[in-house]
């Protein structure tokens, strides 16, 4: 799926396509397994040099069986995004410059994996990203700086400070989060009913 056109900082996603590389590091969650399967199908040489890290999506989709059947040199299922990122940090310690990076699935997982790769010096333009599945958002409250995962409604209540936040399309690659801004700052208590925007 693709998202409607928005402001410049709103991430856009492509379709994973095989590129030459000494190693292929593939990180996916939920329905992202389908994008990984398509990638393997279009790049016959990928499997033998692939390391796949996978975790179920925020909507509960667990396509681990798809990943396990791809014949990747290494494939690991993590119980959650934080445990996947913990494993990723270890993988990056030994990774070489000629590692192609592919991310697929929900925006929260893609964004956090991209953030960790960028922190290692990988230019964000060269990290391939394909969105599949859930559209729930990872949002940072601009007031208390707390991040709330899997936001489904707009506005929503910050899980840290309790403010009611309007979810913007304004996105930070460094934080891997959309921006949430207090919706009743000018008229405290005037909070529109939450609308289910992300699923």
């Amino acid at each position, binding site marked *: 799926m693709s998202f409607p056109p928005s402001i410049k900082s709103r991430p856009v996603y492509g379709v994973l396509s095989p590129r030459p590389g000494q*190693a292929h590091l593939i990180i996916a969650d939920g329905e992202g397994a389908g994008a990984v399967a398509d990638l393997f199908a279009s790049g016959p040489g990928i499997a033998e040099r692939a390391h796949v890290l996978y975790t179920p999506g925020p909507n509960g989709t667990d396509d681990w069986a798809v990943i396990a059947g791809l014949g990747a040199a290494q494939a690991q299922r993590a119980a959650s995004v934080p445990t996947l990122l913990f494993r990723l940090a270890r993988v*990056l310690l030994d990774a070489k*410059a000629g*590692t192609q990076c592919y991310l697929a699935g929900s925006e929260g997982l893609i964004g956090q994996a991209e953030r960790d790769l960028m922190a*290692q*010096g990988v230019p964000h*333009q060269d990290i391939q990203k394909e969105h599949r599945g859930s559209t729930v958002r990872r949002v940072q409250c601009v007031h208390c700086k707390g991040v709330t995962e899997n936001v489904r409604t707009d506005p929503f209540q910050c899980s840290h400070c309790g403010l009611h936040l309007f979810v913007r399309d304004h996105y930070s690659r460094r934080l891997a989060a959309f921006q949430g801004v207090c919706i009743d700052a000018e008229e405290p208590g005037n909070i529109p009913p939450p609308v289910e925007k992300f699923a």
Partner: protein
Amino acid sequence: MSVAKLLVRVAEVEKINDLITRFRFVARDGGLLPAFSGGAHVVVEMEDHGTRRMNPYSLSGDPEDRTGYEITVRRDDAGRGGSIYMHRHVSPGMEMVISHPVNLFPLDGRAKKHLFLAGGIGITPFKAMIHQLSHIGAKWELHYATRNPALCAYGDQLKGPVHFYYDDLKSFIPLRDLLARQPLGTHVYCCGPKGMLSWVRATAAELGLPEHSVHFEEFTAPQPGAPFDVELTLTGKTIHVPSHQSLLEAMEANGVDAPYLCRGGACGQCECQVVKAEGQILHRDHWLTDEEKASNSKIMPCVSRFEGRSLAIER
């Protein structure tokens, strides 16, 4: 583009080897020169017996030292004459005019490690970058190939993780293995002859290094060619471009105010819209996309030329 220039005096001229000479410029007013960063160049203006030459040279000194700028010039006997002028006619005490520094080959601050690949005189920007990184303690490594030890400029001064290679001794940069063993987050910088640049570009792509982590210094000296005439539609002049002058130089010689920064087809500053081209534009820049070049809708007057019946550009 009338940009303020720097008025300098030549403080030192040091012969480094048979082909390479180092020049140091200081401000004529005795003050500090503008700050620069490793990889920056200045355009040196030369009044060569009636011909005005303007050549870009990388700054090879320490960016922390604002009391002077250093450039390192290789004499190119087959070139258009700028380097020969520098070697034969520039001496200490001489007053010269240079541009402000411009950096089209900067260090990428996101890198975890900086890997420098130098071929011959391509060492110059890396000398400045190494100074800069040494001040902040960042990780770097230099692989430096020259024809032979006698032509290895600054070989004795470069300390640290430096590896030398000499063509005459049949020692070459083990490029494939070298790139293959770099840790993730390494940024590669290459400055050297054209063949080396394409070798590095192809090998890095084949190994899967991220495209934006491989950086090239791509100045091209303007090549001579057949003379041609060009109509400048905004100025309302038609000028002649002789075979040993670039279109940009011809405009300047005719008093046309034309913008520029690198004079080597890399920065895009001098780009001109083509109004009419009956003939072929000989694109020699690294700026325009392949589609733009094929459409003949733009020209980079610092390095590109024209062959054909008539050319009109917006300038």
